[in-house]
């Protein structure tokens, strides 16, 4: 008797539950599709339109002249040449911006962590938040005034790096401070209790313990600046050749995309360059996600 009754109750409950379950499942599916469809469509479009152009010379040759591109298009061939000047330019810019922003950002982040609740620390934190909201074109203008006008006396990779470094700073400052806050304070005390001077505890205990958080922050900051175009237009200008001179104008992948967009003969190169840039950013993002996942495990 009693078993029968309880089993009836259970089935009733089950139908209600399974309906609820299905509704929930479908809601999740629909929401997921809405979320991922833009990214799938973007990547699909880039791959579809861009893959034809991606070949060996894409990574080894400089941008073709308009005339070369026009002839190729007229003959139905793929456009010759590549974007190596943009790739090397982007690497140069990112490298220099990182050299400026990583040490400065980490030092400021550590300073904020070490001085919680202090007025000047709050001030710096707020300024850094404001900096993050400054439109990148304005940073480009600033770098133009500071570096192009006064230091390199002309468009230069250095000027672009300065603009990009300023963009990276708030991200690195924030991630450094947050990472340090996550490290248990007892670790710092453990180091000090062994008679280790404070600065050595920071360098040898805290930074290594937070290295995954720090590198995640740096990678995200880099992927944030990789696609920046506006500030570079005002500072590095562009260069049809490979350039490693920090005081000379330099190209960059997003600058090339803009150039290609303005040249009807080069349209095909837009997609392959965008695909490359997207792939680069995506790779950095995946690496940083993996680093932070690994550290949590």
């Amino acid at each position: 008797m009693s078993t029968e009754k309880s089993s009836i109750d259970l089935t009733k409950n089950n139908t209600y539950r399974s309906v609820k379950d299905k509704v929930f499942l479908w809601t999740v599916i629909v929401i997921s599709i809405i979320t991922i469809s833009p990214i799938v469509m973007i990547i699909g479009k880039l791959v579809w339109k861009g893959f034809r152009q991606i070949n060996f010379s894409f990574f080894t040759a400089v941008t073709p002249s308009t005339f070369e591109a026009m002839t190729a298009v007229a003959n139905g061939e793929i456009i010759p040449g590549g974007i190596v000047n943009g790739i090397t330019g982007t690497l140069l810019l990112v490298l220099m911006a990182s050299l400026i922003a990583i040490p400065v950002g980490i030092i400021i982040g550590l300073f904020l962590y070490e001085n919680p609740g202090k007025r000047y620390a709050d001030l710096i934190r707020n300024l850094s938040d404001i900096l993050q909201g400054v439109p990148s074109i304005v940073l480009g203008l600033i770098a133009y005034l500071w570096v192009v006008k006064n230091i390199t006396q002309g468009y230069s990779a250095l000027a672009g790096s300065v603009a990009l470094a300023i963009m990276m700073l708030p991200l690195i400052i924030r991630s450094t401070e947050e990472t340090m806050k996550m490290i248990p304070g007892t670790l710092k005390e453990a180091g000090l209790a062994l008679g280790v001077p404070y600065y050595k505890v920071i360098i040898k205990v805290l930074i290594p313990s937070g290295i995954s958080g720090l590198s995640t922050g740096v990678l995200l900051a880099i992927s944030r600046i990789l696609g920046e175009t506006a500030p570079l237009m005002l500072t590095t200008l562009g260069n049809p050749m490979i350039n490693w001179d920090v005081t000379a104008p330099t190209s960059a992948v997003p600058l090339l995309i803009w150039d290609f967009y303005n040249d009807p003969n080069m349209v095909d190169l837009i997609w392959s360059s965008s695909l490359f840039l997207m792939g680069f950013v995506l790779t950095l993002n995946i690496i940083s996600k993996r680093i932070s996942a690994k550290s949590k495990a």
Partner: protein
Amino acid sequence: MNKNIDVIENPVLKVEDLCIAYNKSDSKYAVKNVNVTVKKNSITAIMGPSGCGKSTMLRAINRMHELYPDIKTEGKIYLNGENIMKMDTIQLRRKIGMVFQRPNPFPTMSIYDNVIAGYKLNGIRIKKSERDDIVERSLTNVALWDEVKDSLHKKGTFLSGGQQQRLCIARSIAFQPDVILLDEPTSALDPIATSKVEDLLVELQKDYTIVLVTHNMSQAARISEYSMFMYLGDLVEYGKTDMMFTNPRNKKTEEYLTGKFG
């Protein structure tokens, strides 16, 4: 002189009029006017209800409070007759080791490196053979050597909680300090791990002076030679542990030991 507080001849540690407040601007003291002497090569337990100032007092002994600029410490502490306030904190902390409530091995370091962390982090160069000796001796002292000798280069955080705590004790004795301060070292451990740590402390008192904060009265009764009882920041009673447990001199001590509060 407070007749409830025994005085020890030739103490390792001597605390004089120690007052500690967590806020420089107000006069709410977490430790009030403590005078106490600690016997060499013994275990001294600090007991008392939660919030009575045990940790606060312990952390004054290696000047941990100086990390936090709001904390005000008054009074004097002598280590073997030398005023610790006048010593270099780095030297002081090498002579007075500390073990914390939660095991905190350095997560980026191997077991081996954790033991010699004091040397490594300070950049003190020693020969490999010497390092190996220190690691083996320290781990043997904490009865961990047999358990970890085949995995010395694994991360210290892979060990169990009790093993980690013993590793932390090994880390603090690698420098052969005079005194080891332990703040409820077994409160995060299970009974078996606890009894291992207790056995170890009993062994270690041959070479070191141990000051142990504990919540656990029976732990104090089992292993300590001297006990302090603190209440609301005051040192109420201090003397031989067995005397205190059988014949407490102060009413508050008696109430605490008989479980009337705590």
